[in-house]
């Protein structure tokens, strides 16, 4: 294919060029610093075009652009602009590249001059709307820095439709071909000669936009552009989705709200956590559990962040619904492999849920009324510099539970919940942005008439972004996260009680990003958390109650971390990211703690005394480093190898004696006896794109170790236990696995197949303890499900009809089964097998849904769509748990399924 053709003189008339362009050839991909020859090779591999050029002509030509299904001609225009080269495409799709002539070099300037004839002079502070392409914006003051011939243009690109920042849009100026891609906050920065320019903005999959500017000094140009006129769904592209092969991070999975909306829903709720569960390496132990397990880690080892706020309980209604209102979420990313250095505090993963701040364009409202839930939201600008988004949900799902109650021991059940999100963003000036996010949720439910459970989340965070200069930006955040639950028992007025638990944390963090030259990005910062936990209190409820008030002593601790990391591009092929965190944790008084016999198991009989600590006195200090290293080496254009190693520390533990997250699980801080969980993970991955980048394949292999995990001795009491250290067993864990993912992102048929083989094992550690589970050998953790397969397919029958199918298979989770029985106290009783020696039957589920859109006229006042489908199409009763009960003195085994029948749903949905 690559033949050197000698064309010393080749005169190309630009009009011929247009006439001969084959409009069918379109290309996709990200090219950063790619030599032209490599680029040509790749285009040839993916299409029928052939390039003919002289090697020495293109030796110094690099391709820097991002194309998504873009016409080849436009791409070539960009590549050759100002390069002194020109090209023509003949009818056989041969592309002839030659050293330029006058005609060729002049062309782009002429081209732009045509546009400039209509320009008008406008001030940059005027409203920047969608159709501002013919105005001329004056940027900066000529009096600033007059000796410099260049000036810096900065700004934020946001979407007209959603107002959210646009990530990965290309901003370019075509004369000198200066260009940059926006970051995940939609920011860009260009250094240009002073004077008039035409600025082009190309969004992936969207239209090109342009702005005329007159650059007189440093200044800001913010732009709102249309995302994609054909899309009725909101399209949010997260940074992880850019390129399977080229991105530096491994083990990062992004999911867009649009993708989540395509998944068949349960009870019609668009659920971001359910989207997370389609990713390889992520699993859940039960159907009504949105607590999830990442790479063999426990559910409490996931750091769930809404903006910068930690959400302690990410579910409503004991797991039926996710706590996140999809209307106020702009995107979701899950880090399971190489966790970025700016995150810490949990062992397994970070789930970053990005909040929405609304649009600057116009005030609008949205709402929904459903049979199970309803919601209402507003967003828009307040003045010129402030925008907000607010949303709320509530439920009235009692009737659904009534259907459940006969079978699931939910008699007398009653469930109510609501949540509110309110986010505000204020642009003080072009260098300072304030952001406020808040989240509040409350759940109340009863399983029987006498007992009321409730829990609530509250998250508040205030952030200040500051751009110090072209290279350095910082973000400072303060916030408060709290979670509490309570149980009111009114079984008997005399014994009525009010039990409560809460966890509060105040945090402050400073995060900086410094771009040094082109090949280093430094990230550094500090993060402080002040924990305050009420581990449990029990009070009499009502005037007649004779319950004695009990209050466990509050737990307080401080945690300070500092971090530094560098993303270093060593060469075109090889990039590394390395860094570390150092965490200092202090468990503080006032508190009285037991002293135990040194070297003996921690039991009540080994208590030899007490030690009392005063307010603010340090009871126990833990500190240690965390390391993060990852690297990427590209092999040719379509494949790469990546590796990663990181270590993590976690100071807060979820005490739970059930296999799923239950609302009564409580959080516990590391103290003198319960040490911080420490773990590490090493992983290696191979990434390959096929078929014009339409197919992405990746495989990752990982191994993890975990120390100081908690398991519980037989008969452990978790609630209101003053000496919880006597009931927990220090345990070790290991997990390993291989994940395979094949994904098709474009075309009429989109979808993914992911298969994971993984193991997660635990063992009681060698420390002296009262009990060694399974005699101190390794045993399966509660979420050890070796095989897991998820298949998601989305087929666009037409622009208006879209179908999706979802298959989910996993090995049954481990369970401790009764294997023998005996008579005791007048009844048959069960004797259990070794811990987790058996498994419940395998899980398999198929869901199907169809979306019907209305017509796609842009100017229609309202768009309507129907979506209907069936959850658990095969009606398979996938057991959630297995148990034995004595009935009339005989033991009977039962399996409990949550959704044992196909569950059809219909959603009517309209936008205006």
């Amino acid at each position, binding site marked *: 294919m690559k033949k050197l053709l000698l064309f010393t003189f080749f005169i190309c008339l630009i009009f011929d060029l247009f006439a001969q362009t084959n409009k069918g050839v379109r290309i996709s991909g990200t090219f950063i610093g790619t030599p032209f020859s490599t680029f040509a090779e790749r285009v040839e591999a993916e299409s029928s075009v052939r390039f003919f050029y002289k090697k020495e002509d293109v030796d110094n030509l690099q391709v820097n652009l991002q194309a998504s299904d873009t016409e080849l001609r436009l791409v070539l225009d960009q590549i050759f602009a100002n390069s002194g080269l020109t090209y023509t495409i003949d009818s056989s799709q041969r592309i002839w590249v030659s050293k330029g002539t006058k005609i060729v070099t002049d062309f782009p300037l002429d081209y732009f001059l045509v546009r400039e004839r209509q320009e008008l002079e406008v001030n940059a502070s005027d409203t920047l709307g969608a159709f501002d392409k013919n105005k001329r914006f004056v940027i900066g003051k000529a009096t600033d820095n007059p000796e410099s011939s260049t000036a810096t243009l900065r700004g934020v690109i946001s979407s007209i439709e959603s107002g959210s920042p646009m990530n990965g849009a290309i901003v370019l100026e075509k004369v000198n071909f200066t260009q940059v891609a926006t970051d995940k906050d939609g920011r860009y920065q260009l250094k240009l000669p002073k004077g008039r320019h035409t600025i082009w903005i190309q969004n992936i999959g969207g239209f090109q936009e342009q702005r005329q500017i007159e650059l007189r000094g440093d200044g800001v140009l913010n732009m709102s552009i249309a995302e994609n006129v054909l899309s009725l769904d909101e399209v949010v592209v997260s940074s992880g989705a850019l390129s399977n092969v080229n991105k530096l991070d491994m083990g990062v999975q992004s999911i867009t709200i649009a993708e989540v909306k395509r998944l068949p829903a349960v009870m019609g709720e668009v659920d971001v956590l359910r989207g997370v569960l389609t990713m390889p390496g992520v699993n859940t132990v039960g159907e009504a559990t949105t607590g999830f397990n990442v790479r063999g880690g426990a559910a409490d080892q996931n750091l769930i962040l809404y903006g910068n706020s930690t959400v302690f309980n990410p579910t409503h209604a004991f797991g039926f619904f996710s706590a996140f209102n999809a209307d106020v979420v702009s995107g979701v990313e899950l880090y399971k492999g190489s966790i970025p250095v700016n995150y810490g505090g949990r062992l397994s993963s970070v789930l970053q849920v990005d909040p929405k701040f609304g649009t600057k364009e116009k005030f609008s409202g949205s709402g929904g009324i459903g049979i199970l839930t309803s919601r209402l939201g507003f967003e828009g600008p307040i003045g010129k510099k402030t925008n907000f988004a607010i949303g709320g949900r509530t439920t009235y799902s009692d009737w659904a539970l009534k259907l459940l109650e006969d079978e699931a021991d939910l008699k007398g059940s009653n469930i109510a919940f609501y949540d509110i999100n309110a986010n505000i963003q204020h642009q003080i000036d072009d260098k300072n942005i304030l952001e406020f996010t808040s989240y509040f949720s409350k759940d109340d439910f009863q399983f029987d008439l006498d007992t009321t459970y409730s829990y609530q989340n509250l998250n508040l965070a205030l952030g200040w972004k500051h751009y110090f200069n072209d290279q350095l930006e910082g973000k400072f955040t303060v916030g408060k996260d709290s979670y509490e639950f309570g149980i009111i028992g009114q079984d008997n007025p005399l014994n009525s009680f009010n039990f409560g638990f809460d966890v509060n944390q105040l945090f402050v963090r400073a995060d900086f990003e410094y771009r040094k030259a082109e090949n280093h990005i430094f990230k550094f910062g500090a993060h402080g958390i002040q924990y305050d936990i009420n581990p449990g209190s029990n009070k009499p409820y009502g005037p007649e109650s*004779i319950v004695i008030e009990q209050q466990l002593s509050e737990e307080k601790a401080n945690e300070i971390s500092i971090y530094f990391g560098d993303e270093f591009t060593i060469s075109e092929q090889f990039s590394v990211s390395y860094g570390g965190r150092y965490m200092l944790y202090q468990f503080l008084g006032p508190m009285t703690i037991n002293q135990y016999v040194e070297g003996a198991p921690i039991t009540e009989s080994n208590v030899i005394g007490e030690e009392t600590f005063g307010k603010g006195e340090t009871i126990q200090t833990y500190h240690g480093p965390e390391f993060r290293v990852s690297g990427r080496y590209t092999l040719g254009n379509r494949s790469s190898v990546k590796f990663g190693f990181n270590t993590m520390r976690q100071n807060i533990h979820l005490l739970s004696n059930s296999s799923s997250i239950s609302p009564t699980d409580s959080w516990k801080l590391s103290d003198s006896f319960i040490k911080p969980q420490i773990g590490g993970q090493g992983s290696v991955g191979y990434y390959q794109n096929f078929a014009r980048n339409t197919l992405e394949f990746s495989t990752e292999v990982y191994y993890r170790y975990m120390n100081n995990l908690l398991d519980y001795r037989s008969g452990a009491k978790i609630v209101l236990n003053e000496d919880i250290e006597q009931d927990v067993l220090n345990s070790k864990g290991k997990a390993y696995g291989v994940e395979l993912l094949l994904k098709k992102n474009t075309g009429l048929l989109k979808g993914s197949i992911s298969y994971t083989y993984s193991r997660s094992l635990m063992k009681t550690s060698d420390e002296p303890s009262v009990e060694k589970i399974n005699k101190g050998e390794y045993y399966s953790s509660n979420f050890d499900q070796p095989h897991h397969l998820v298949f998601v397919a989305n087929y666009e029958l037409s622009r208006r009809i879209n179908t999706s199918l979802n298959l989910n298979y996993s090995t049954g989770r481990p369970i401790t089964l009764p294997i*023998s029985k005996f008579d005791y106290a007048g009844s048959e009783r069960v004797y259990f097998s070794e811990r987790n020696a058996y498994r419940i039957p395998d899980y398999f589920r198929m869901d199907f849904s169809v979306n019907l859109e209305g017509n796609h006229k842009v100017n229609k006042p309202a768009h309507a769509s129907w979506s209907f489908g069936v959850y658990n199409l095969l009606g398979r009763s996938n057991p959630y748990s297995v148990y034995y009960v004595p009935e009339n003195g005989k033991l009977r085994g039962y399996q409990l399924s949550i959704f044992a029948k196909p569950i059809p749903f219909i959603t009517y949905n309209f936008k205006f």
Partner: protein
Amino acid sequence: MRKTSTYLYVFLLLLASCREPFNPEIEPTDLKVLVVEGYLDTEGIPSILNLSYTRNIDADDDFQLIYPEGTVFLESESGAQFPLTSLGNGSFEFSEDIPEDQIYRLKIFLNDGSSYSSEQIQPIITPEIIDVGFERNENGVEVYLTTKGDQNADDFLWTFEEAYAFRPKIPTAYRYDPDRKTVVLATEEFRTDLCYREVSSSDLILETSSRFEDQYVFRQSILQIPRGDERLTVRYTIEISQKALDKNASEFWEVMRKNTDDLGSIFSPLPSNIGGNFVNDQDPSAPVVGYLSLGTVRQRRLWIDFRDVIPWGVAEVEDYFGCIAEGDTVEIPDYESAFKTGSYTPAIPIYCDTCYEPIGFRKAERRCTDCTLRGSNVKPDYWED
């Protein structure tokens, strides 16, 4: 340009969760674990220690139980030995008055050569039950108990046994006498219209008295009898046993209670392996199930008569679904053909205007008239009318 969206959910939601029988394939592990059950009375009142083995979970009722045999004695820290008398089938009787201020150990020597020792046991004298009573509430009748803990007795276990008198759906004073081939008035021995039924309960009720002011456990709920339940239709009795436990025993019973009651609901805790206070002398890591306690058992019996709970709507008893007396009269010549198989019995006598003897009977299924199918027509010996 901003599009707002409103979602309107319309669900055809046939939501159903499901509970199905589960019969997993379990390796027939012949787990022969020794099980020790007992609460030995330290005041000389005869009390029983039972030894048995665990059996496979799939074992049927007619499984031939093999009981451990051997010798068992209690040994005090001063070295005194108090033997238990074997009653066969793994039962051993203890009837010694022993000092409560000593610490004891139970020794078991089995005929297969294995031996077992308990951990040290401190007898606990169980405080008296202060009161038992019942109260009507909107759900039926609640049986409660009041007691008070003390320095030695903090944790309590309550178990109970119930008995009640009941009548069949269609009571009758008559019976078919197959020898005389006629219907006669039933004598006391053949009575089928009033029976007694004893029910042993698997319920374990545990409470810690120090949770309450002055360790006063007031009106601890023992049992809830649902409205209309058959147990309160004639006369009912419940005998509640109160045992004081030490901390470890209380944990053992708590594990047993959890393993029995709490498994399988949505937030069920993980099952715990149950142990106890015995060790196999030859293999200390071998499992042994059972917790032996020493002390005294306090018992109180409560009687509830149907008059105490009037009005007590009677709920349908499952065994009597579809019970009716048939409309056609069985006349005297047809008695033999109608009643000799025993599946039908005479139910309602039919008289003529002038006669003293029935001229025929309306018949009903035996299950509807004969209470001895579900109980005994002999009063338990403790029964008080």
